[in-house]
């Protein structure tokens, strides 16, 4: 058995090649087609927002990237390499961290064990220990709760653990699926503060949100997804001022 985890993470991409690129991706669940010809790119070091209303296909897009579902057509390129046929575990090993919708913690494990599972594919003990410290530094509350059962935490704390668990794989691309879902506004602010901090530390972020204002204020660029298709895209400021986006997603 080869030990993919011990191999150094993906070398920095040659400039110009995006960290992530979707080309004309179709995804179906049985007879329901969820994505139609979705194309998007995420550049090195960016935060990119993917917004859209409920059922637009945002979660499906993220699951396609992380290999939980497979596209029926199109390509998913990670630093230029096609990954669309690979299993979720192989993609995770390539440095894609996924904090799934609804957090999906291992609720009967402790917080610490959850974080440890995030580092499942890694063998570098020292590095894992460093990353524990990094996550604890980002989320001091998580450290306080580290021996508590994950299922017993509040929603905000659970979201922090979910992000922390994704970070434990030391991803170069972090996929966040509605981190604000079900959180009190003040908690949302602190979570997004940390997301910016993670990004400033060099991690590329693809952020999914229904809360368009929040997402576009955090991201540099954004895509608007409508019924499985990319309706609009552009720099966040442009989208924030586009009448269509304002009407549909910002309630103006």
């Amino acid at each position, binding site marked *: *058995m*080869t*030990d*993919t*985890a011990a191999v150094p993470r993906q070398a920095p991409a040659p400039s110009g090649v995006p960290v992530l690129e979707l080309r004309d991706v179709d995804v*179906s*669940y*049985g007879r*329901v087609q969820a994505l139609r010809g979705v194309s998007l790119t995420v550049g090195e070091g960016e935060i990119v927002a993917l917004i859209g209303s409920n059922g637009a296909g945002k979660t499906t897009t993220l*699951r396609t990237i*992380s*290999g*939980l*579902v497979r596209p029926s057509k199109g390509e998913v390129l990670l630093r230029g390499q096609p990954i669309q046929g690979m*299993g*979720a*575990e192989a993609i*995770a*090993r390539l440095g894609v961290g*996924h904090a*799934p919708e609804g957090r*999906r*913690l*291992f*609720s*009967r*494990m*402790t917080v*610490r*064990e959850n974080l*440890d*599972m*995030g580092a*499942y*594919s890694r063998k570098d003990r020292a590095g*894992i220990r460093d990353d524990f410290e990094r996550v604890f530094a980002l989320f001091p509350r998580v450290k306080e709760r580290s*021996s508590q*059962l994950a*299922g*017993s935490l509040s929603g905000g704390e659970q979201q922090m653990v979910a992000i922390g*668990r994704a970070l434990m*794989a030391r991803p170069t691309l972090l996929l966040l699926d509605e981190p604000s879902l079900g959180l009190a506004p003040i908690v949302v602010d602190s979570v997004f503060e940390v997301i910016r901090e993670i990004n400033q530390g060099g991690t590329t972020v693809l952020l999914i949100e229904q809360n368009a204002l929040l997402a576009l204020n955090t991201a540099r660029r954004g895509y608007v997804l409508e019924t499985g298709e990319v309706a609009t895209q552009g720099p966040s400021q442009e989208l924030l001022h586009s009448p269509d986006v304002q009407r549909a997603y910002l309630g103006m």
Partner: protein
Amino acid sequence: MPSLGLGRLLTRERVDPTARRPRGAGTSTFWIFSIGSATLLFMGWLLPWFVRPTSSGIGYSPMDVVSSAPTGIGTFLVYLLGIGMLVMVLSPFAELFYRARKRAVPERLDQVRVLIAVFGLVSTVVVFLLTRVIQEEQLFGPIDAFTITDSAVWLTMVGYILAATAYGLRGWVIRRPTTAFAALALPVGILLPLMFHQAPVFILWAAGSLGIYTLLALGLNVVVGFAGLLDLGYAAFFAIGAYTCGSLASPKHSIHLPLWVLIFLGAAVASMFGAVLGAPTLRLRGDYLAIVTLGFGEIIPDLATNNIGKLTGGPDGISSIDQPIVHLPFATINFGINKEWYYWSVLLVVIVVIVLLRNLEHSRVGRAWVALREDEVAAAATGINTTSTKLLAFAIGASVSGLAGAFYGSIVTIVSPDDFSFSVSVSILSIIVLGGIGNITGVIVGSFVLTFVIFWMLQYLNEWSATLGQTINVPSLGNIDYSQYTYMIYGVALILMMLLRPGGLIPSRARQIELTSGGEEESLAAVQGIA
């Protein structure tokens, strides 16, 4: 293929050094000691009832000494032992009493009990020495203690040692449950055949039913307990192991491989079948998985009945399976005659399997199983290969079963399709449910309790009942065939347990939490739209 960390099986690795011991492990061990001591002393006291039917007439229990008129000092000693026995039998209730009132057990009580236990131990040794070594029979009245079976003496000694440890070293037992358990269970386990040399049936029970069922339960626990995959056809792998042994160590095909090769072969063949069965069921969960495995469990004995490929001997099965004859420099051991060697071999295998499975539970794979059980989608997203992780659970579970099967074939010397019916799968599942799904200690205790009741007590209950009927003049008590009530006992035991201790006798941490919170997450297949 990703590394599954199998190489670390022997070097137990805890990735998280601060990870907690499962809650309550220490107190469980304390209870095992406390209840165990009560049971052993009680059994020692009424030994002929438990270890062999009274009618076979060798040896007596201390009870018989007491029921004769007291004459010598020895009889008096036996009386005192009886009082000690009563104290220990009542002790677990005292523990319950204080626990219900949320108070610590008074130190005084513990001191008294330790004193009684030590005194009892010394007296037992004295009785033993007087009767066996010095042969001072006159001290013991008409039925002298010389006729007290060795087994009663041993049971009493072990019972008092357990009691002294539980009440005298309560703190140690609770802090270091595994050490305490191993320190007492190992010597007792190894010496057991010597204690019961007057009751060879007992040794056969211990080696056959208890040992084999413990292995089976440990293996099924990997699939059901660790990986959370409900398998209702587990007896199929047991059959595969047994038939492997039968085919390759009998006149049937004129092949005579040694048992030591066959246990590995049985394990290997069964694990292959385990993976084969596992592959098509990977996307199934819960009910659907149970039904497919149930089908597999029915198919295998059917294939054997139909004498597929003229390999299995049809409904009659394979008979005259070899029993090992080992030539040592100083002696020759014939397992067919000296059955205690089967017991020791099975015991060794059980211990090795326990050590391996404990390490496995705390290895990377073990954690992956927990994650998979908790949330398949999140597990896949964190880089766990769900396919190989599940298949590994099936394969490992099946291999333990195949190993047990090979031993079984050799012990009973004849295997036939009927030995591997659905009821066997049900028994094994009942054992782990009763003992505590996912908890190795619980599973061992469960197999002890159920095999004792089903394979021992039920067999002799007819005779005990007949004796009782004669004594109290109700002869119809002798006409009840208790062995017909096996399933009723399963049923009653399981219902009682669901009501009183839904996590099993010794619940695993996950089960404990699950029972207080938590439902199931959406499956990976559902997320992928293929369920």
